[in-house]
């Protein structure tokens, strides 16, 4: 039972880590708290679903379309929708309020588009549904594959941020946008890139989750909450913290779903959130100031 | 001497991660005294002020106001206990008029004065700092020194036992500086107790009864301005060893 729960939560944590890394890039680098992140995720899930059922395209191949498309759309959102807010904000607080409101509106636009296209029904599809045995317990192959892809993406992001020149520039913007500008980093461009990359990672997480979850157009809020709480637990702007917190959240959820009731997973998420707020508001990895 | 100490700081320390920003600082401020807190940039003066005013909680040590323990209290409790402060970068309240800005100090300070009485106190203080007749002006439309005057009046409106000034004279031009020094001097004459972080040496020489010198988080020297400013270690801390 224990190993089953542990393995299941690791498999789930992979996709959570992707969406949380996506949000932490958007919030930590581009300074936009994106309340529509769950809708980005659901949009990608519906995209994979549609490509699979209508075009018989494997969700793994559909990533090749969905991820670049999400990158482009998020770039456009940052450029046309959010940059005006960044420009008109007199300070960080104003930008925060404005971006919360704008992405809250965006949430309803995306959700509305999904409702118009798919209605309020629940969807799922069967892909790689055969069981595989891991450590003596059987799991859906789709979950294992999803985890593998998530791990690859996370590794690629880590190497990209830490081993490339542009990755260093992005990390510099995360630490101090003003100082980054002074050393000739194009901050608006880096912010747009980070926002787009974040959206792409979130979309990738959504496509992977669609392989084994049942979803509907109105579920975005729950995933946004999960992503936000993971980001806060991990420490804003810290992708490593996001990964650790993602697995922690997946573990707590899996335990609650297995031992208590699957209907209480959001309550478990909130419990983690409250504990974080009470004891480590700076995040697991953050330093207390 | 210690019986008249209003503010006592004992063994106060603050660590940020591994960095000791304030290290075992102790000193007293006596009634009616102006004490200057000086030292090179980054020596921990503002952090020390933040520890006293409650913006930060100390890692170790204590702050007492007339033997009342204030260590670790939140800023509003410290303000109500009778310590007011100004900020290094001037902070006025943009949507409140000059008069309302000053009333804030009286309304939420130790005496909790409200209504017409608070307005009367604020009006008198605006006059006092040289802003008589500007009661209804919005602070954003005012000059830098006028904003600093509002901030000072707001701090005074609480009728504090100790006034903390964080580089209140910084950024003023020579004429404004003279006005500013005269203003603080008049507070001194009134018997106010002031602890001020300051870089302007002329101001320190003419205003302070005593100075506490900090370097790299620790107390380097304490004494009259003439004493500390001729101290070799102090000169070395400011200008490097060659000049000492």
């Amino acid at each position, binding site marked *: 039972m224990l190993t089953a729960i542990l393995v299941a939560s690791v498999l789930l944590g992979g996709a959570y880590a992707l969406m949380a890394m996506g949000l932490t890039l958007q919030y930590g680098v581009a300074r936009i708290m994106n309340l529509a992140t769950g809708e980005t995720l659901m949009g990608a899930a519906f995209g994979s679903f549609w490509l699979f059922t209508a075009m018989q395209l494997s969700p793994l191949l559909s990533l090749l379309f969905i991820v670049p498309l999400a990158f482009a759309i998020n770039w456009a959102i940052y450029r046309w929708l959010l940059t005006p807010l960044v420009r008109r904000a007199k300070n960080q607080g104003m930008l925060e309020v404005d971006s919360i409101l704008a992405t809250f509106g965006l949430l309803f636009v995306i959700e509305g588009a999904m409702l118009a296209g798919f209605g309020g029904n629940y969807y799922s599809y069967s892909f790689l549904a055969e069981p595989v045995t891991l450590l003596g317990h059987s799991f859906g192959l789709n979950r294992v594959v999803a985890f593998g892809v998530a791990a690859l993406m996370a590794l690629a992001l880590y190497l990209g941020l830490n081993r490339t020149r542009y990755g260093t520039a992005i990390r510099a913007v995360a630490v101090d946008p003003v100082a980054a500008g002074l050393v000739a980093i194009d901050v608006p461009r880096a912010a747009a890139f980070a926002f787009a990359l974040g959206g792409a990672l979130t979309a990738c997480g959504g496509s992977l989750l669609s392989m084994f979850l049942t979803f509907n157009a109105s579920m975005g809020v729950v995933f946004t909450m999960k992503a936000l709480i993971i980001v806060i637990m991990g420490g804003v702007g810290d992708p490593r913290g996001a990964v650790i917190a993602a697995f922690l959240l997946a573990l707590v959820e899996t335990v609650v779903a297995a031992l208590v009731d699957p209907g209480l997973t959001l309550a478990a998420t909130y419990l983690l959130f409250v504990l974080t707020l009470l004891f480590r508001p700076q995040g697991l990895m953050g330093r207390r100031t | 001497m210690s019986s008249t100490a209003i503010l006592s700081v004992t063994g106060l320390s603050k660590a940020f991660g591994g960095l000791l920003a304030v290290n075992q600082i102790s000193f007293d401020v006596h009634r009616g005294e102006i004490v200057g807190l000086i030292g090179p940039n980054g020596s921990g003066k503002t952090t020390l002020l933040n520890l006293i005013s409650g913006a930060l909680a100390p890692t170790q040590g204590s702050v007492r106001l007339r033997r009342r323990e204030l260590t670790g209290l939140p800023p509003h409790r410290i303000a109500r206990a009778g310590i007011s402060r100004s900020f290094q970068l001037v902070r006025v309240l943009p949507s*409140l008029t000059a008069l309302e800005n000053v009333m804030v100090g009286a309304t939420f300070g130790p005496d909790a004065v409200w209504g017409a009485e608070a307005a009367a106190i604020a009006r008198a203080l605006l006059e006092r700092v040289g802003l008589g007749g500007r009661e209804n002006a919005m602070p954003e439309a005012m000059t830098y020194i006028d904003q600093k005057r509002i901030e000072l009046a707001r701090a005074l409106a609480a009728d504090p036992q100790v006034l903390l000034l964080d580089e209140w004279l910084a950024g003023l031009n020579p004429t404004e500086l003279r006005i500013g020094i005269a203003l603080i001097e008049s507070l001194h004459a009134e018997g106010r107790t002031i602890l001020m972080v300051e870089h302007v040496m002329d101001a320190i020489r003419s205003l302070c009864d005593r100075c506490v010198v900090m370097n790299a988080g620790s107390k380097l020297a304490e004494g009259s301005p003439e004493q500390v400013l001729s101290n070799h270690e102090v000169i070395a801390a400011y200008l490097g060893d060659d000049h000492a």
Partner: protein
Amino acid sequence: MIFPMQRREVIAVVASTAALALLAGLPLADDGFWLALAISIASYVAMATAWALFSGPTNYVSLATAAFFGSGAYVVSALAETAPWPVVLVAAALVGALLALATGLATLRLSGVYFVIFSFGLAELIRQLVTYYQTQVTGSVGRYIFVTISASEIYWQLLGLCAIALFTGWAIQRSRLGFALRVIGDDETVAAHSGIDTARVKVLLFCISGALIALVGAVMAPRFTYIEPQIAYNPMVSFQVVIMALLGGSKRLWGPLVGVIPFVLLHEWIAGRFPNHTHLLLGMVFLLVVYFVPQGVSGWLEKAWRRIRGESA
């Protein structure tokens, strides 16, 4: 700020009392479509005003209106058959205040972002908890509400709540609490260092706001006849209250009032004309408001008024 009541204020009080009396006569003229529309408008005026009591001066955007509204409605479903109506209302207000208190204690000591996040998922959290409780304990999700109360009575109660919300806002504005809120909205650091217990002020205000919204939920509950978590905790309520308050302008007491009426009419029109795209279109309207009317209609009107009178803005 002048403390005795100004002439302008006296005029405002007399005018709003007269307006209220006039509005209260509406059910005598019509008890069909117009009354239904008036109920919708009155409920949103009360909620948007209550929302702006807290979120306007503090700039802490609460996305949790549906959580308070739904909880108020659920108190009715739990108690209406056993307790007299006034007791039910008091219980609803208490539940709303307690919910706000818990949220406030968890988040309002910290920066505003945590509060927004907490409020964002709150309605969904409580919806899931209620669903869980009902499936585990009562065995069935959803309940019928048997309260014999006419549409006119609901309307009058809502008008009463609007009056209470506006009066509360007015009283707060004149009090030390209101002064403290303005300082907090401008600069929390200065507020704290001037002696304001910022966390306490924020929690208190949020509790008042939460109690009022829960009361609206309670009064509206009999309109639903059948209540289930999906209906009571509808996220559209949170969304609409925010957009109405923003459209009207949340910095002025009368702002939300100005925002509600056009938005309810627009909503009616969109929902009738494009039933499948309501969500999408309302989301777009929301974005338009955020981008093009950031100060709200009331801010815009005030500026125009000043210009007409020849004062500089």
